[in-house]
């Protein structure tokens, strides 16, 4: 094209119209082929709620919100635990309102998983954070289940989410029938592992049993997708072992106390009495503490505080 000839203008207009029509046809063809994750009705609505201002980089934004969620949880959890053990010396950087709030945790996780509805780890770890008892977390198993149910909207085929739901019902809410139903639904999905079904059965029959708990945690440790999850599960298993040990030690102490007709005040007494050969240590190697005749795990130990067992009273 060179110059202002009438012919070339007509040709150009014709070309634009022709290709314009072609582009519309192609658009329609492409629109009828939705991609695997987008154009979900719910997604559209909640995305608008999350603030669409991040268009294509929403995955990145999801990652950022996830990082914020981890740090929010981590820092609050740490402060809360310190407060718990040393109530008379709160950290100077915080005000004196207790308890430490975890209010924003759910929002952060919700936004992150809205931006990336397939953000697997945000759902699973997020649920763990939410369900964790105070002072480790906000102690909101209801929100944890809500988050996991949200995961199932986008990925109904993933049995792991049903497994996690069952876990929350079992461990945090002590609702064994619900837990069993959740395990069952997970077990019904194609590709689910065989032990999910046996879990369903066991929790129904022996909910609250320490062995059942061990089973759950052991399965979690073996199928964990990363080191952090496996480590957490192993800690839990060690805590259960510690509870076993404490119960046995308690038996010994009570026996010695009954014999000497005096409360046992220190390990020395037991050593002198020949009941023990050395000061007992928990599975991480920290010595147990003995005060007012009761055995507890040391506050220095990484197993502190011991979890509340389903069906028992809270530990000191």
């Amino acid at each position, binding site marked *: 094209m060179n*110059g202002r000839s009438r012919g070339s203008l007509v040709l150009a207009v014709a070309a634009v119209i022709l290709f*314009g029509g072609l582009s*519309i046809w192609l*658009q329609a063809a492409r629109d009828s082929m939705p991609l695997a994750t987008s154009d979900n009705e719910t997604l559209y609505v909640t995305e608008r709620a999350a603030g669409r201002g991040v268009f*294509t980089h929403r*995955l990145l934004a999801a990652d950022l919100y996830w990082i914020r969620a981890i740090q929010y949880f981590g820092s609050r959890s740490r402060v809360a635990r310190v407060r718990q053990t040393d109530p008379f010396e709160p950290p100077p950087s915080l005000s004196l309102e207790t308890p430490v709030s975890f209010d924003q945790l759910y929002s952060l996780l919700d936004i992150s998983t809205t931006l990336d509805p397939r953000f697997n780890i945000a759902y699973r770890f997020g649920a763990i954070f939410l369900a964790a008892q105070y002072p480790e977390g906000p102690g909101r198993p209801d929100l944890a289940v809500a988050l996991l149910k949200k995961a199932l909207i986008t990925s109904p085929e993933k049995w792991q989410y049903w497994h996690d739901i069952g876990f929350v019902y079992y461990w945090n809410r002590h609702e064994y029938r619900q837990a069993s139903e959740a395990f069952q639904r997970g077990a019904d999905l194609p590709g689910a592992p065989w032990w999910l079904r046996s879990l369903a059965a066991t929790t129904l029959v022996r909910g609250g049993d320490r062995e059942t708990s061990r089973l759950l945690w052991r399965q979690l440790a073996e199928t964990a997708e*990363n080191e952090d999850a496996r480590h957490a599960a192993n800690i839990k298993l060690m805590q259960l072992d510690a509870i076993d040990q404490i119960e046995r030690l308690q038996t010994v102490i009570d026996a010695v106390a009954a014999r000497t007709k005096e409360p046992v005040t220190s390990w020395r007494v037991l050593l002198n009495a020949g009941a023990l050969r050395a000061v007992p240590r928990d599975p991480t190697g920290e010595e147990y503490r003995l005060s007012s005749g009761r055995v507890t795990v040391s506050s220095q130990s990484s197993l502190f505080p011991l979890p509340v067992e389903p069906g028992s009273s809270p530990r000191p």
Partner: protein
Amino acid sequence: MKTLGWIAINGFREAVRDKVMYSLVAFAVLLIVASYIVGELTAGQDVKITKDLGLSAIGIFGLFMAIFIGIGLVSKEVERRSIYSLLAKPIRRSDLVIGKYLGLVLTLVVNVAVMTAALYLVLAYLGTEESDLARQAREAPLLDPALLKAVGLMLVQLMVVTATALFFSTFSTPILSAVLTFLVYVAGFFSADLRNFDQVVDSRVVQALARGLYYMLPNLASFDVTAQVVHGLPITWRYMAVTTAYGLTYITILLVMSATIFSRRDFK
């Protein structure tokens, strides 16, 4: 034909010798490498983050390059008057427009290739550090060739943006062209919302207008398959083909309009 080659090569040479261009590419590569550090913060999700960040970086920097060089393609020449001696040579005005466009596309391809290579290198490095446990748990392969699908569609998208920048620069100043191109880019991303207008608005007229606008603006969001690739979801070849064809058609329209306007205007 040879004329187009000469003009394209010269356009490429101009871009390659531009310091700003180098800075952009270097910065992008730095960012991709830095994603390794960010990955440490995310509880073992460093592969996902690296892919997210890497693809986003390529997208953003590619966009800057596309707009930045695109507007200079023609506007700069006209403003500086270097166009006078160029058009005195036996070339058609349309050859100039198309040749310059091809030169820019070449530049984009090279830059995107460099950034993609950096991304793959970082991913490979991550691979040497990760545990078997993590490897099993991944949704998509580490050095996933599907990443190239995402990059490929991203490239087509950048070519559309470049053609838009070129179009505006055939008749307006560099700054105005940049602003207009950016506006079209933003509109192109939200254009998918226009399609859903009939669910939100009652008026038939507005619905029709929205539909019309939807088809007129380039639907840029459809070129973004990052979410699929990172989560290892399938992208059919059919989708790639149709979307690419759409992009090329849109580019053709823009080039025809650019060549026409450029051929008929006065150079004051």
